[in-house]
């Protein structure tokens, strides 16, 4: 491998981490309130389609983003209704949402654009394009600093917004009254209920936040990372985010690090086709499967320990 590629790989790491971080934060909000969300993947996919389709129709990335958030929110509310009101199985509901999103996106895309589920390629004006930070042009000439600038500069506005969302989530969950109540409802909903706070209301708020975050993630995938929607374009990112969430032991900052690690593995997998250690060629597939493998090993308690919120996945029934 060539070290001169490093700035490029790291810049690509950041780009690939963005949807992971957003989906992971979505999962964090949801699961902290006690709602397991297998449907991150589906919500992102639906949002990616909505963003690409509406950005193409209105020729505006921002309208695409808004509609993506709205569509993802609708799916989130469906999940919330099943999980909170109907006390249904949250995993089953998530699986259903993934299928609904995957099917609907292609069916509607095929009807509206007649390109077999694809959406038309977006012009640069209807995408979230890279922003060069002030001074980046000049600084990139400086030897060591230049590499750093290449990594940090030239990302889209959504990327920089995502960077802000991590401390915001960490702060909101740890320091605000809302965050405290939300965490309590995921650990011991009975106690929250006894205190006179609505369990259902808090859980709906968490589900809504998760929906909006997945919407941004989806819009990023189809209007910033690429320039159109293609079938199954989220490619398991929702599940990888779920893995990162477990890795981070349901905390915001570690979630960022886990997503950066997984993003790096993805980026390295893209750049390291045919890389060698000595005479041994590292198969790309092993780099790709590493996040999943690490998660299995971590969950099995072989490295550290990962403890989910105590009431996650359990429907809450008020005692009468």
């Amino acid at each position: 491998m060539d070290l001169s590629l490093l700035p490029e790989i790291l810049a690509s790491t950041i780009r690939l981490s963005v949807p992971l971080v957003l989906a992971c934060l979505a999962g964090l909000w949801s699961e902290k309130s006690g709602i397991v969300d297998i449907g991150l993947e589906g919500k992102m996919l639906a949002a990616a389609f909505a963003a690409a389709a509406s950005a193409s129709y209105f020729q505006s990335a921002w309208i695409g983003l808004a509609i993506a958030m709205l569509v993802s929110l609708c799916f989130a509310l469906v999940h919330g209704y099943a999980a909170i009101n109907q006390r249904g199985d949250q995993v089953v509901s998530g699986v259903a949402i993934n299928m609904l999103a995957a099917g609907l996106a292609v069916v509607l895309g095929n009807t509206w654009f007649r390109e077999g589920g694809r959406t038309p390629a977006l012009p640069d004006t209807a995408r979230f394009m890279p922003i060069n930070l002030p001074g980046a042009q000049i600084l990139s000439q400086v030897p060591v600093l230049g590499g750093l600038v290449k990594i940090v500069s030239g990302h889209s506005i959504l990327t920089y917004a995502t960077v802000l969302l991590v401390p915001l989530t960490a702060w909101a969950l740890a320091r605000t009254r809302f965050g405290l109540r939300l965490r309590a409802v995921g650990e011991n909903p009975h106690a929250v209920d006894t205190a006179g706070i609505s369990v259902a209301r808090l859980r709906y708020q968490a589900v809504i936040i998760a929906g909006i975050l997945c919407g941004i993630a989806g819009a990023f995938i189809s209007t910033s990372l690429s320039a159109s929607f293609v079938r199954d374009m989220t490619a398991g990112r929702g599940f990888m985010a779920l893995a990162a969430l477990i890795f981070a032991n349901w905390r915001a900052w570690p979630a960022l690090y886990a997503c950066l690690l997984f993003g790096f593995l993805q980026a390295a997998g893209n750049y390291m086709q045919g890389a060698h250690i000595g005479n041994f060629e590292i198969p790309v597939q092993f780099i790709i499967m590493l996040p999943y493998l690490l998660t299995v090993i971590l969950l099995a308690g072989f490295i550290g320990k990962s403890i989910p919120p105590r009431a996650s996945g359990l429907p809450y029934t008020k005692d009468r």
Partner: protein
Amino acid sequence: MAAGRGELPAWVDMGLIPFLNLVVALFVAGLVVVIIGESPFESLGIMLNGALGSIKGWSYLLYYATNFVFMGLAVAVAFHAGLFNIGCEGQAYIAGLGATIIGLGLEFLPWFIVIPIAMVASMAFGALWAWIPGYLQAKRGSHIVITTIMFNFIAASLMVYLINNFFRPVTRMAVESREITGAYILNFREIARLFDIRMPSTPLNLTVFVSMFAAWAVWYLLWRTELGYEIRAVGANSAAAVYAGIKPDRITMIAMAISGGLAGLMAVNEVLGVQHRLLLEFVGGAGFVGIAVALMGRSHPIGIVLSAMLFGLLYQGGTELSFAKPLISRDMIVVIQGLVIFFMGALEHAFRPALAAIFVRLED
């Protein structure tokens, strides 16, 4: 339970509720067809005619159903033990490895020896890929849902690597193994030809009988053997099962292995009966159809066979529909699948109490 005193009669539980769910799912799917700008009734007609109107249609229906029976049974056995196996997709994929290794490695043996060994190998590979998550849940406290999801992705990467590096002939561009000639399960066209009967080309092969046998075997296992009783006891209440002298950990691992083995039989149908080689992603989402089939079939073998045929109808009819009306993509079936899973699985508490209330009123 919200159902209260109104215990529903079996025909409601097994028949009416799945039927109502199907009607609602089809209704929503029909709305999507209307949004697309096509006639839902005409579309339904094309689907029914495409699947039931010809021998070819029926044979495709039964071919799809064969896969779905295996997958549905796999999901159902795990359900009975209180486990949600989302990993059937990966288990069947890995099982294809077992079928291919035996099929290619023991080519010199006659078919009536190779095929049974290849079937056992498929089941063994599938069982192993499911047993590991079972073991990790039972002994290490991992959650089976997360582990089986991760195992699907691990299997996907692993198989790309293995097929590309060990099974692909050097001369071939496509990532697939060379042809398996020895362990060749005859399809119905080839059998008909033996009797001088002409039949359209079809993927339907003798494995369909294996799926019928598997359905009977699962019924026998669950309701007629001690192990089956233990599986159901753990699924109903694992804490209570301990007092009956049952070890839930052991049952978790066994149930997962059986589930994986059943999923593995899908590879027999696909690899030895249809493709006659190991292809990338030959499972094609059947593992997820299995979830819908098991939920719709109420985890009972008879229900599973019927709902597998229903989904076979949807798949075959949907394919014909997408030829006749290119606007309606075949992915419409995935939407229906999602709706069925949502209504049967996630909203199961929505339909039952309402029906139970009606029945209580009728009884009074």
